[in-house]
Every structure is written in structure tokens, then in C-alpha cells.
């Protein structure tokens, strides 16, 4: 299929304070496609919220905003697109974003589930308990290699665990999540 069948989205960066107004202004002639979020840790201390709108039979518009990772709140767009409510509830479950004026009931996670599992510093217990088979070096009979390797997607215990001194910075957590060699800090 030729690449121009999938033209790149038009992307507009929006200030969080004008999120609802921009969505409302863009809504005419466009349908809601999806809303999601991403953890920007390592690049900046933000969560990125993305809303994709699609003109009927036409091009897509992607609205993006960065909100404070430590106090993530944003106006709900459910009054413009009621269907966005489920997406917002999902983002609330997985990233801990509070949508002002929206429906903030849990959607997929039970109340009382500890943590926000799609934030990159969320530690997956299963990956901590099980030894990573890739941690060995070729030819190494023992589990621990000379070089310390951590698997992709798992923050290194040096970074996420209780440790002496200052808590890990965002870029340390992000670097350890990518996998590969771990930079030890004293």
C-alpha cells in the first residue's frame, strides 16, 4: 500500500489551560478518534496527553499537551465528545490523570489498585521476581555477568528501590527502563 494512503497527522501543541477550548474549536467537522497518554519521564517531568480527531473522510488532527507529571490534571473534553470519557477514565487508571469536569471513576483497574501501571517507573513485580534469562553473558556459566545488564522495560532496582541519598532523577529512571548497561550512582 502506498505511503501516501496514510498521510502524517497534523500535530498541534496545545497549552493545558486552553485544552478544552482548542478541542471545542477543532470539533466542527471532525470526529473523535482516540485519546491517550504517554509518560515523558527522561525527557521532561510531564505526561503527554494526545487527542486524535479525524475529519469525515479526511485528514487527522492530533492535539498534544504536556501536563505536570507530579500534579497531572487536565480539563475533560467529554462535554465536546462524550465518547472521550472512556479514554479519559483509562488514562486516569493507567497514568493517574485527573480530568476536571469528567468522569473519574475507575474503568479498568479496581479501586485500591496501587500505582499507575503505564508510568515508566511503575515496577512490574513479575519481572523483579523472575531472573531475566538475558542477563548472562555468552559463555558465562553463572547468572551474574561481569557487566550488569537489565532487561528492557524494567527500572533497575538501583533506581527504583529504597536507596541512600537523593531519589532517582527522571532521566535516571528513564535510562534504566530502556535496558542495557546501568550507570551506578553513589
Amino acid at each position: 500500500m502506498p505511503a501516501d494512503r496514510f498521510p502524517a497527522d497534523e500535530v498541534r501543541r496545545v497549552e493545558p489551560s486552553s485544552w478544552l477550548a482548542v478541542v471545542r474549536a477543532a470539533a466542527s467537522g471532525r470526529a473523535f478518534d482516540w485519546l491517550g497518554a504517554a509518560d515523558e519521564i527522561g525527557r521532561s517531568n510531564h505526561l503527554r496527553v494526545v487527542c486524535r480527531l479525524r475529519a469525515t473522510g479526511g485528514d487527522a488532527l492530533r492535539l498534544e499537551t504536556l501536563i505536570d507529571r507530579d500534579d497531572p490534571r487536565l480539563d475533560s473534553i467529554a462535554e465536546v465528545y462524550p465518547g472521550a470519557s472512556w479514554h479519559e477514565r483509562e488514562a486516569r487508571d493507567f497514568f493517574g490523570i485527573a480530568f476536571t469536569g469528567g468522569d473519574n471513576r475507575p474503568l479498568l483497574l479496581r479501586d485500591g489498585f496501587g500505582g499507575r501501571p503505564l508510568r515508566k517507573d511503575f515496577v512490574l513485580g513479575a519481572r523483579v521476581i523472575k531472573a531475566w534469562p538475558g542477563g548472562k553473558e555468552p559463555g558465562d556459566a553463572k547468572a551474574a555477568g561481569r557487566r550488569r545488564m537489565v532487561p528492557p522495560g524494567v527500572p533497575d532496582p538501583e533506581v527504583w528501590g529504597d536507596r541512600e541519598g537523593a531519589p532517582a532523577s527522571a532521566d535516571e529512571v528513564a535510562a534504566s527502563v530502556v535496558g542495557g548497561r546501568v550507570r551506578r550512582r553513589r
Partner: protein
Amino acid sequence: MRYWDWFGDGSLVVCDLGLACCVVELEAAALGRVRLDAAPDGAQVAVVVAGTVTDAVAPLVRKRVADQPGDPIVIAFGACASAGGPYWDSPVVTKGVDQLVAVDHYVPGCPPSPGALDEVFAAHAR
């Protein structure tokens, strides 16, 4: 509870616990078999757990197996039901239905082929 009469003779009836996409293969394997509304007296019951067992549905899975008459055969159909499969690291997924109930057969695959289930039952019929 509904069952498939697997061999059409009332000897083995199959209860499906379709929890995720593996149920598509299970239904393909069951295509054309007779549906029953209850297990006939004396029939061997088999419970096929097809799909991802989440912690949220774990109590229901346990109850559904406990409610079966007789001593049911439990089959973990596919990687998720066997050990969590691709969701082995999820914070909300039970790492295999054998953490809830005793399992008699583990069928690998993501998904397994419908024929894999036939092989398991054929071995039981012998």
C-alpha cells in the same frame, strides 16, 4: 451451565470458560457439536479455560470449576491460561489458571490450533 457434547454420545461434555481470544480456536474445535443445557448423569465433564485469567475474574473461574458435577478434567488452553503467556508480567493477570484450580492438561500455543484440543480429548476417549 451449557456444555458441548464432544463425541455426541454423552460420554464427555465440555464447559468453556472463554476469557480471551483463545476461545475463537475453542469454538472452532467445537463447531457443529451438540449443545446441552446440563451435564447428563455420569458424563465426564471437561472445563476448558481459554484465554487470559485476570485477578478480577479469578474468583469466578474458581467457582465455575467448583460448581461442576463429578470430578472435572481441567484444561489450560493456550499460553495465557497455562502460565500467563504474553501477559506474564502484567500486574493484574493470574500467572496460569493452575494457581486457582488443579490443571490436568496444558495446551501450548498463542493460540493453540483447534486440533490440539481434539488430540487431548482423543487421548481421554481411548
